[in-house]
């Protein structure tokens, strides 16, 4: 029965999103519902935390405004117990009169104890764990629900949360050193040190939409009050929050006995798309009449008949938004090279192609071998028996039954020219569309962005060989306003980005010649030359080992590059460097992927980048990375080392229409010169891994869609 209850929950979620209300009646009680968010955009009352969590995989974007402070927070429920967040705060006049202090901070919140009937949930947390210390605090907090509507929390805080009525450190760690250094490094020597203080709060869910909050805060805003930008008259804060629509919460608050505060949060969950797949129905399986003895293979001896089947295949594949790279036919087997530029769930593309083949191929063809071809390279081969398609099309558990019958392996050797349509090469594709380039959380401004028109073109010359380029014409934007001069003591390999934005606001984004190939068993290779990215040109070579059925991939990349002129035209500056990495990619299971890159970075520094991403079967991913090199924190400058968070969301998730377009972004607290990597296009691992066993199994549910 456990299986079924799990299914109910999933169905409820799906239905809640689509607007049906049938699951609301079973609504969660206060203690197992999604914890509400405080002024830090993390589970909390207002300034104080609670021991709650959001729903697993929730992504929350929150804004809060009170007195001289404005905060914007992006929080992610990494797994059911762990919440992480990145926050950008602005405080007016805190350090210099008339200037706004922008501060970036990372928080972690871990719920280590679940609530039961007789005991509260408990959580431990770090706020601003590696920033400049303005918001640094730590806490241990307990929360207990009483009935469906009342939730009470109490805890003990350190740092900022111990600036009112503090007492001696309960662990005897009385010494909390002042913040020193450049920020960005975990403040191990400060956490849970120095005086401590109690805080607590109450939440009351008056109706399903309306929540009342009250707290006693141990944050006295000493510093803000000291410089006269805030008047704190009371330790008690009060708030009213209204859930306008599920996931959209608006709040108004009376804080410090002197200020009105406002807040808003938006929550979405990658597991719950707003719509299901609205793409057209697939072609049904065409069942062969008669039986095997009627199925004559003599056609395969006649080249003209083979060609006719290839032409029909091209027509129908293109009608479904895909393309044919090659078709190698004999009486019993059809091996098809597939170009899939449409379906983001690769297994869906495979299932649709298999059904199209059932409709087009003559009856004697029993074995369908589909080889997805990416940039001229066959990433894998998927072998399906036609009789399995015919037999399982309408079987109730057809997903579970078809997958073990499908063979997933390495693609065969490249077929000869006879198997390829005549008009494949050369082929020109082009695109014209809008672009937005944003640099968020610049130390001087929360958001700078340019928008304009981008033209792209790609000329396919032969299988695997292509040349492609992109130019941008900026129409509006303020990225050129950044006049901060790099103070880097390293070669300015990235910290001059704002000069590129200013002097090269319109220009050549990239123009490369690329050759991709399979040099041996389980191996993929790439050579790229030209203007590789907006700041560098040169030559780049990569070799990847990735067996189709392996969780592990290993790669080597070597580049020799020269820095491009600031105008992003064809010239180069004096700086050149050999840079490259050895990379390991590993699917940890449970939706987590790890990557380690070890090598030499753009500034000539040596080190390693560690990345961990949570990925969802629908294509979402969210992750974090950090790079440690032989550049010291002092040489690196603000932030101490390179790190950031990244996410990617499939466009299809928002629209319900299949598309291989992804919306992705990387957010760094600060972009400097240490630990900087080349941004070369067509890195091999993501290209081929999409069609390997793990990804194809993740998409199994869509084989029959």
């Amino acid at each position: 029965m456990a299986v079924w209850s799990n299914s109910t929950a999933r169905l409820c979620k799906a239905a809640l999103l689509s607007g049906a209300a049938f699951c609301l009646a079973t609504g969660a009680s206060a203690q197992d519902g999604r914890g509400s968010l405080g002024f830090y955009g993390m589970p909390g009352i207002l300034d104080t935390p609670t021991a709650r969590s959001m729903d697993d995989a929730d992504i929350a974007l929150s804004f809060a405004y009170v007195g001289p402070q404005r905060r914007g927070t992006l929080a992610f429920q990494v797994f059911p117990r762990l919440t992480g967040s990145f926050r950008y705060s602005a405080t007016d006049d805190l350090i210099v009169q008339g200037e706004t202090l922008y501060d970036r901070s990372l928080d972690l919140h871990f719920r280590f104890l679940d609530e039961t009937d007789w005991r509260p949930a408990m959580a431990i947390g770090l706020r601003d764990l590696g920033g400049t210390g303005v918001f640094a605090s730590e806490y241990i907090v307990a929360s207990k629900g009483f009935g469906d509507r009342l939730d009470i929390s109490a805890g003990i805080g350190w740092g900022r949360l111990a600036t009112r009525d503090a007492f001696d450190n309960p662990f005897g760690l009385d010494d909390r050193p002042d913040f020193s250094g450049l920020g960005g490094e975990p403040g191990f020597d400060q956490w849970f040190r120095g005086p401590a203080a109690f805080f607590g709060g109450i939440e009351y869910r008056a109706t399903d939409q309306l929540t009342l909050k009250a707290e006693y805060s141990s944050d006295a805003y000493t510093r803000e009050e000291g410089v006269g930008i805030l008047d704190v008259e009371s330790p008690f804060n009060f708030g009213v929050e209204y859930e306008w629509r599920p996931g959209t919460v608006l709040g108004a608050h009376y804080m410090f006995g002197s200020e009105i505060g406002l807040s808003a949060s938006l929550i979405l969950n990658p597991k719950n798309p707003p719509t299901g797949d609205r793409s057209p129905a697939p072609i049904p399986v065409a069942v062969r009449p008669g039986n095997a003895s009627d199925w004559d293979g003599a056609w395969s001896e006649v080249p003209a008949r083979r060609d006719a089947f290839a032409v029909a295949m091209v027509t129908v594949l293109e009608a479904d938004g895909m393309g044919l790279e090659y078709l190698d036919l004999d009486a019993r087997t059809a091996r098809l090279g597939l170009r899939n530029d449409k379906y983001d769930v690769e297994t869906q593309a495979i299932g649709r192609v298999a059904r199209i083949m059932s409709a087009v191929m003559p009856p004697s063809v029993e074995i369908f071998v589909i080889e997805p071809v990416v940039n001229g390279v066959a990433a894998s081969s998927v072998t399906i028996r036609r009789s399995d398609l015919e037999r399982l099309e309408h079987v109730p558990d057809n997903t579970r039954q078809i997958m073990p019958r499908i063979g997933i392996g390495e693609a065969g050797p490249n077929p000869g020219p006879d198997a390829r349509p005549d008009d494949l090469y050369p082929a020109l594709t082009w695109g014209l569309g809008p672009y937005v380039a944003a640099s968020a959380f610049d130390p001087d401004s929360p958001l700078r962005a340019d928008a304009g028109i981008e033209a792209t073109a790609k000329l396919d010359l032969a299988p695997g060989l292509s040349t492609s380029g992109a130019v941008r014409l900026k129409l509006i934007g303020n990225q050129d306003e950044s006049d901060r001069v790099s103070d880097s003591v390293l070669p300015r390999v990235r910290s001059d980005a704002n000069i590129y934005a200013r002097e090269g606001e319109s220009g050549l984004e990239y123009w490369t010649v690329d050759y991709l190939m399979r040099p041996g068993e389980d191996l993929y290779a790439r050579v790229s030359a030209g203007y590789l990215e907006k700041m560098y040109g040169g030559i780049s070579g990569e070799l990847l080992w990735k067996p189709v059925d392996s969780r592990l991939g290993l790669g080597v990349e070597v580049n020799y590059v020269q820095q491009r002129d600031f105008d992003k035209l064809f010239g180069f500056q004096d700086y050149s460097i050999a840079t490259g990495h050895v990379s390991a990619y590993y699917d940890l299971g449970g939706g987590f992927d790890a990557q380690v890159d070890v090598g030499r970075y753009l500034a000539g520094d040596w080190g390693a980048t560690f990345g961990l991403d949570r990925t969802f079967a629908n294509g979402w991913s969210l992750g974090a990375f950090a790079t440690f090199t032989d550049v010291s924190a002092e040489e690196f400058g603000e932030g101490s080392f390179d790190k950031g968070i990244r996410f990617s969301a499939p466009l299809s998730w928002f629209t319900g229409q299949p598309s291989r377009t992804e919306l992705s972004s990387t957010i760094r607290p600060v972009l400097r010169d240490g630990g900087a990597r080349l941004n070369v296009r067509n890195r091999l691992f993501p290209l081929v891994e999409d069609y390997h066993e793990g990804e194809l199994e993740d998409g199994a549910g869509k084989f029959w869609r």
Partner: protein
Amino acid sequence: MTGLRSRTLGALAVAFFVAACGSAGERPLSSVTRTLAGGISAAIQGDDTGGGDAALEAQLTRAALDKATRPLLLAELPSRDARATFVIGGQNRAHVTWVGADGIGLILKNGILTGTRGLGADLMTADIATPEAAIRRGGGTATRVHRYLDGENQIVALPVTCTYASAGATRLVIVERAFPTRQVVENCTSGSHNFENRYWIDTRDGWIWKSQQWIGPELETVTLTHLVR
């Protein structure tokens, strides 16, 4: 609900990407539609079975139906405010795939819905092994298992328990033509969902001329009428 917020986001994303154009853009939907509606040959020859409301109304006259050369099914889906005719796109033993002009597919086994495609919250499969006999009999109890895709593309099964009862003889009129039918009512519950299906079965040969069948929690009930058998 979350829908609106996400739809707003979606609309923004769509607006942004729809503004783009290029040679590699997706093919117009109509060509896919042709593929589905007319089968493979039509895809190659460029047959067109599409049409708007006026075309639908023109189809729904006795004169037009009498001239029809192939089976035609009318489906009405109030949850989508949609109404369209469907033709046979494929047959696999007892399962018939009906295809509509806008890329929608409906799968029926002996008149009982076992799947939908292209609607969003599609019914991927339905296990109707025991319900089929109970519907024919007009009595008893049976279990259905519906399968759907969740937001992470995983199959989730929804088993429902159903009871069957005969609701008597009815003279069913479909576009001016009357058929002698008996009505069977199927009442189902899964705990969190309750729904009622209804079938109008020809008393002469058991053909299900008309039915009201529940697709799932989001799409709810579709009404299916066979205009041309």
